[in-house]
């Protein structure tokens, strides 16, 4: 249906977006790549090119790198486990007929709209504080000694805070997916005597497989770059330094730009591996 004329007009209309994104992607990336081969420490006035793969070697062989990868894996894995399992259960519950479904939905989705710095600060001070925090009151109520969350179990505390923010996202998407499930299929299986567990295992879960994959991939992309929650709570200390936070510290706090840039390039490669999987799924959907 498109004529030659409208084709060239279409290209023209796409041009600004394509050029902007191309610039946004290429310019900083090329600069980071260049810096990663330099001994670049602006505070000391050092900017020497080129030192080969020295930065990469130093970054990868330092113990903080191995630690940060471990912390990142635990943090992302923990949050994914909580939000996906919790999300499936919650979505199934919310799908049941009930009174006030709309209001419950609104209550459940709310944390997703709270800005990361607010949720981190509110949790840190008003909930996890060992003296005045709500959780401390609850612990005392049951006769237990209050737990000093952020210093005794900092990693778990951050996992908890971020899970609270992302559980609504997982729930909302899985609920949307569940609602598209054919109820006749379920009724038929119920009549055939399938119990709750086998219905869940053989009908609901396979139906959700795709949505779960999407949730896992999208959350992974966002969770790999968790920043504000760590910045506000522990500043990367007590074993909560993720790869993102380590690179941030190298680049902006200690201003060792060469070393940090090498880390940045590694993070880009890591994110791309995950992105490829996500793109395949989204791409498949584009054909349909």
């Amino acid at each position: 249906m498109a004529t030659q004329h409208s084709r060239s007009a279409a290209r023209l209309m796409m041009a600004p977006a394509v050029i902007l994104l191309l610039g946004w992607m290429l310019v900083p990336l090329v600069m980071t790549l260049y810096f990663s081969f330099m001994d670049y420490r602006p505070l000391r006035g050092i900017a020497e090119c080129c030192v080969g793969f020295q930065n990469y070697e130093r970054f990868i062989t330092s113990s903080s790198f191995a630690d940060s990868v471990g912390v990142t894996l635990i943090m992302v894995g923990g949050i994914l486990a909580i939000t996906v399992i919790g999300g499936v259960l919650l979505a199934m519950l919310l799908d049941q007929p009930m009174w006030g479904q709309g209001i419950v939905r609104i209550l459940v989705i709310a944390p997703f709209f709270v800005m990361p710095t607010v949720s981190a600060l509110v949790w840190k001070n008003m909930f996890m504080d060992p003296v005045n925090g709500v959780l401390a009151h609850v612990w005392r109520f049951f006769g237990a000694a209050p737990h000093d969350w952020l210093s005794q179990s900092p990693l778990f505390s951050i996992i908890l805070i971020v899970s609270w923010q992302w559980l609504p996202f997982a729930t909302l998407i899985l609920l949307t997916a569940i609602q598209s499930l054919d109820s006749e299929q379920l009724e038929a299986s119920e009549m055939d005597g399938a119990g709750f567990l086998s219905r869940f295992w053989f009908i609901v879960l396979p139906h959700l497989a795709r949505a779960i994959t999407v949730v896992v991939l999208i959350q992974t992309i966002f969770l790999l770059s968790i920043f504000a929650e760590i910045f506000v709570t522990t500043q990367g200390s007590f074993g909560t330094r993720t790869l993102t936070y380590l690179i941030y510290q190298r680049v902006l706090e200690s201003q060792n730009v060469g070393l940090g840039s090498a880390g940045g390039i590694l993070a880009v490669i890591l994110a791309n591996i995950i992105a490829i999987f996500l793109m395949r799924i989204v791409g498949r959907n584009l054909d349909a």
Partner: protein
Amino acid sequence: MARASTPQKKAVATVAAWTIGLLIFFPILWTILTSFKTEADAIANPPKVLFFDWTLENYGVVQERSDYARYLWNSIVIAGGSTLLGLIVAIPAAWSMAFVPGKRTKDVLMWMLSTKMLPAVGVLYPIYLVMIRLGVLDTKGALIVVLMLINLPIIIWMLYTYFKEIPGEILEAARMDGASLREEILYILTPMAVPGIASTLLLNIILAWNEAFWTLNLTAAKAAPLTAFIASYSSPEGLFYAKLSAASTMAIAPILIMGWFSQKQLVRGLTFGAVK
């Protein structure tokens, strides 16, 4: 998959869902309640839930001591500006990809999505450096551009999925009647696309409002929006819960309300159309 159920089942589901829903919402509710307490009531032991002297004092103090309105204004300008700028760039692009698809349209879309996956920390220093060189570090304009760019793929994707649902026959009919490209966009497509554009706008204001990597790292005193303002609120011990709560409540209230309105579109926008 709603099915017929007995009243007992419905009652059990209602109680369970409300309990969990209130638990999840509790931190927000508690923050809102605390914002109306005096600092003494805020750290009272045992905690006072509803029976305390309700006061609006904290809201006034937050404004007085830290010029809250300025940060709020920065947030509004940055979130609104980046969203509007993004729409201006994205609408023509999404339109052309939806209605005049070429051989490579799909590749272009996928590539745009891939730019969203670039970890921000990997390009933090170059952006930081460029901004210093251009003398735009800690300005609202720079942040508007950066946030526009990070959300542009989402805006284009959302619009694209909405535009795709507009039947092409209508356009053909208009063309046969001699409508020009400009008229086609202005009088036919735009009215049909308004709902899609509106939800894209809403979602992107939310995303930009809550963005906390670039806003924390690229602003200082002048251009800092609410995300950065709240982060500066960590003082060591107690005694400021009520003010923290008041500041937090004001920071999240507008977005919470917008978010509740856009929850349906959220799924589509954040999954790039992979779950509808």
